[in-house]
């Protein structure tokens, strides 16, 4: 696991690109350690962080590292609240605070198993760096709300897409594509990241079919390094796990049912 330097560091935005409903933020991080697929960073704009509507945002926000190459970290953003909105406004040359890489990443697939990457919405981000890290061909299944969001699929290679409205690819849930893939060839290991409902669907399906699965969770968190205990999710067998420290990637068997509160990136609801 890559260890983060102690303390947040001031980094410079090198470019921002629109990708359908998303933005891809590229940040120069020449001295940062190379992250492992599935790790994340806490981000906050250096200027005008706070003082927006309701005096928010205040806390930094957690983002999967979507890609890391040439001393640049890439992040996939969607404006869903005051923190993500401010980060989406950043332009090349702007500065931001970053802490990371943080958390426990994905574990590489065993050689005899095919990796199936299942992503939903902005949760496709850690699957891109995972695809970069796995040498063997992988199956990529991505689900989106509509056509604008489905443009995010170009972040990965050879993705099959499902949309809620049927405007691109399969009309319906990405978990339906996953079910037929597992049925066709059950010798697979699943890597998933997305909204709570999708992850719960993946968890339940993989439990039923005995398919090993690693799930990358999101949770509203204040710190990202185990200090605040805010990002708790129920542990199978009782108690709680910290998404930031014990995850964000979990073996599906470690988790209880994934509830609606997982997947909130804005520390409470966006205003």
């Amino acid at each position, binding site marked *: 696991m890559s*260890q*983060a*330097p*102690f*303390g*947040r560091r001031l980094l410079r935005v090198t470019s921002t690109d629109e990708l359908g409903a998303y933005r891809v933020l590229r940040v120069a991080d020449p001295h940062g350690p190379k992250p492992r697929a599935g790790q994340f960073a806490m981000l*906050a704009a250096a200027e005008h962080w*706070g003082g927006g509507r*309701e*005096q*928010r*945002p*205040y*806390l*930094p926000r957690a983002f999967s590292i979507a890609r890391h190459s040439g001393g640049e970290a890439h992040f996939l953003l969607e404006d869903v609240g005051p923190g993500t909105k401010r980060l989406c406004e950043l332009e090349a040359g702007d500065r931001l*605070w970053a*802490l990371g890489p*943080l958390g426990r990443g994905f574990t590489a697939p065993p050689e005899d198993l095919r990796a199936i990457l299942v992503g939903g919405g902005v949760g496709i981000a850690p699957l891109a760096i995972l695809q970069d890290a796995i040498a063997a061909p992988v199956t990529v299944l991505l689900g989106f709300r509509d056509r604008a969001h489905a443009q995010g699929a170009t972040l990965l290679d050879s993705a099959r897409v499902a949309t809620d409205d049927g405007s691109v690819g399969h009309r319906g849930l990405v978990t339906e594509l996953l079910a037929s893939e597992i049925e066709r060839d059950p010798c697979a290991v699943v890597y998933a990241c997305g909204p709570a409902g999708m992850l719960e669907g993946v968890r339940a399906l993989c439990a039923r079919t005995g398919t090993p699965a690693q799930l990358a969770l999101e*949770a*509203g*968190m*204040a*710190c990202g*390094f*185990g*200090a*605040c*205990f*805010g*990002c*708790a*999710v129920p542990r199978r067998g*009782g*108690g*709680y796990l*910290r998404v930031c*420290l014990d995850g964000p990637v979990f073996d599906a068997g470690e988790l209880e049912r994934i*509830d609606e*509160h997982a997947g*909130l990136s*804005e*520390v*409470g*609801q966006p*205003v």
Partner: protein
Amino acid sequence: MSIRFCGLELAHPIINGSGTFDAIAAFRVFGEGLRGAFPFAAYVSKTITLEPRAGNPPPRLWEAPAGLINSIGLPNKGLGDYLLEDLPLLADMSTDPSGAGDSQAVPLITNVMGSNAEEISRLLEACDERPEISAIELNVSCPNVHTGLDIGADPRQLEQVVRAVRGRTGKPLIVKLTPNTADVALCARAAQEGGADAVSLINTLRAMALAPNPLSRPPRPWLGGVTGGLSGPAVRAVALAQVAAVAARVAIPVIGMGGVQSAAHARELIDVGATLVAVGTASFLDPAAGARIAAALHAGTAP
């Protein structure tokens, strides 16, 4: 700029607020980068209870205007496992305040909470036996099971409890006052009369958030624990008033905290009478915030 506090020699006046920095987790995350750059002159543990606690059901956080409401519920592994597993790890921490490689051990302050004098006595006795612990902080924001009032919110009850447990340890005893009371200075006096060696404040202000519509109709509390505690810049002016009021009424040292983000904020609490200043929520934004504030305080510069 070393500081004497209750017989301890601290490298600088900045410590952490209980429950805002998990040093064991931080060493897992930051490794050697944290060793030798430990941001606090003393380390306060999260609250330890006799029995293990899982904590409150999520959601546990709500971002408030310039602040944070948390409803964590004091998760901890219980006194037995804390003493067995955590304390030896914590005792191994060191800091290098000068940056010249002359590291020194970080004094450990263990924060404990019990629901009555008997529970608190058992906690203090167990801590008293451990040489790794330099001082004990008593969290009195625990409801009395009979009255429902926080022990620390009622000056008479607080004085009785502190007096009843005082003799169980020879280590310095710090009472962490609750701000959710009619007169915090009266409570501070009561803690002093009961035998406390120091008081610390402010704890978080009781607060609530409603789940926004249309997610929830009719509206219901957002936090799994229903109410939580407000911290961050939003509470700093309240903290300044309460620390000033307490420092004017007690002879024992005061640890001030509440919304401190910078050396200027720490300086204000010291100016109104605090001996030490704790950094809490600011560490969530940057784990090195305490070190930055201590360095700027030392240099006499603003940030």
